[in-house]
């Protein structure tokens, strides 16, 4: 369980040009959940990621992960529970060969060799990297590199996997496949996922969407609940997916559409229900 209570954070605290990045944020994420975090540039998403992985510490409030307070004293315990994947894989890959990099984290935990080998094997398998396990990382495409970074995070067997815009450098189909893979892992391993993204389409695939603005949480709920607030989202610079936005406008004109509409399929279904007239 991630418990964030009244957390504030500013960069360069105490100085004149202090930058407040989070203010009084409250957020709870139960184990095994699949949560997307969206927000405009500078809304504090990456800052939140840094606080959850003990790269920075809150200037106010508390964060607990499975009951362990995230502070300097507990930083290593926190990092065993939480793995992070950054936007740019070049910023986080340490070794120069695929399988060696995946093994880097488990090696640091001091696990026995057999255990490391087994974790490397299953992480490589989960991300479809078995064939390129011996390759040099510098020779890989950015999609492949991002997979290696995720495999490395996964090999830590974290309670929560936190991804900070891992898909923003990838072509859309590759990004979609990656999200599907992460969903699969989330279900199989009951590993909680917090996925930061700019893409509303991606966010619609999650169980829960948290919208951030100016260091605060402004909306929180299922994609259907959140995307209902079309005006609110537009005001903070976010565009609701086309199908959801069309449904919103049709409803605003008094056309009654049944159910949650997140994508084209939902919309088609709702519209054909309207066309065939109200059922008896």
């Amino acid at each position, binding site marked *: 369980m991630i418990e964030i209570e009244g957390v504030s954070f500013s960069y360069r605290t105490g100085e004149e040009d202090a930058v407040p990045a989070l203010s009084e944020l409250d957020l709870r994420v139960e184990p095994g959940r699949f949560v997307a975090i969206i927000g405009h540039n500078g809304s504090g998403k990456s800052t939140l990621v840094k606080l959850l992985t003990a*790269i920075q510490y809150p200037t106010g409030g508390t964060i607990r992960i499975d009951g362990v307070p995230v502070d300097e004293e507990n930083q290593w315990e926190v990092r065993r529970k939480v793995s992070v994947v950054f936007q740019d894989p070049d910023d*986080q890959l*340490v070794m120069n*060969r695929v399988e060696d990099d995946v093994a*880097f984290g*488990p090696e640091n935990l001091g696990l026995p060799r057999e255990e490391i*080998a087994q974790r490397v094997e299953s992480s490589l398998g989960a991300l479809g990297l078995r064939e390129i396990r011996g390759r040099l990382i510098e020779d890989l495409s950015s999609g492949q590199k991002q997979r290696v970074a995720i495999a490395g995070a996964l090999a830590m067997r974290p309670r929560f996997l936190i991804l900070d815009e891992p898909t923003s450098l990838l072509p859309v189909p590759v990004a979609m496949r990656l999200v599907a893979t992460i969903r699969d892992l989330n279900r199989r391993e009951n590993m909680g996922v917090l996925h930061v993204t700019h893409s509303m389409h991606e966010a619609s695939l999650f169980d829960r969407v948290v919208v951030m603005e100016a260091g605060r949480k402004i909306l929180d709920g299922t994609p259907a609940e959140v995307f209902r607030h079309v005006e609110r989202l537009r005001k903070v610079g976010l565009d609701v997916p086309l199908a959801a936005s069309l449904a919103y406008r049709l409803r605003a004109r008094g056309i009654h559409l049944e159910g949650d509409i997140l994508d084209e399929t939902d919309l088609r279904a709702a519209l054909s229900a309207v066309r065939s007239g109200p059922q008896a």
Partner: protein
Amino acid sequence: MLELQRNVIFGQYVDTGSFIHRMDARIKLVITFVFVVASFLIGDFIGFGIVLLLLALIQIVSRIPVGFILRGSQFFLAFLLFILVFQVLFYPGEASNYLWRWWILSVSTEGLYTAGILGLRVIFLYHVTTMLMLTTSLVDLTNGLELIFAPLQRLRLPVNELVLVFVIAIKFVPIFIEEIERLARAQTARGVPFDQGGAVTRARRIGRLLVPIFISGFTRADTLTTAMNTRSYRGGRGRTKFRLMEARPSDWAVLALVLAWMIVAWLV
């Protein structure tokens, strides 16, 4: 354009899967060390003649093309030539054997000889260390160094950390080079020609890139440290190893041959 990545190979790793690539990293490190010692002991052209044959052998077995090494060493070789010319011109030769003389500059047979030996020595050192890095992956290099220096840990020396610093330094060479290229390209796009003008002008243009390169280097180092920390790296303490190091009989045979060569050379 500078094309530094192709022109500076120091610190790169090129996997050809050759016998040398598959050798135990510890043995490769010991052999490299033997060669380094040898380069200081050898002092005549016959000795270096044998060394050159040896280097050629290493080159062939490694399956790394000679052209690749030569192209990747041109900056280094140009620099070496420059130093050697100085060495010759300022060599305090005796009046009896100089070939040419003007003001305080001279060319003497002795000067030529000393510079020749120095040049060969440096090339020998450069070649064996470059080959070590070209044929040994980062992990093997780290693990090999750690295992060799493990006994020093008892003297409270932070061996793991030192090895890691060394390895990251090596890892950074290509990154720095890439960074220089990127910045140079950006400058070229703004109309600064790096491939025109005299040597001094060119050197000055490259010099102007130094500050931004160091800044981006520090940023990179900081990012890498953060990444390692978030992946639970705490300075090598309690770290276990995924890769096994196994010296095959053939590896020992190579080491024995090298040592035998050293002893024979010593006696003759």
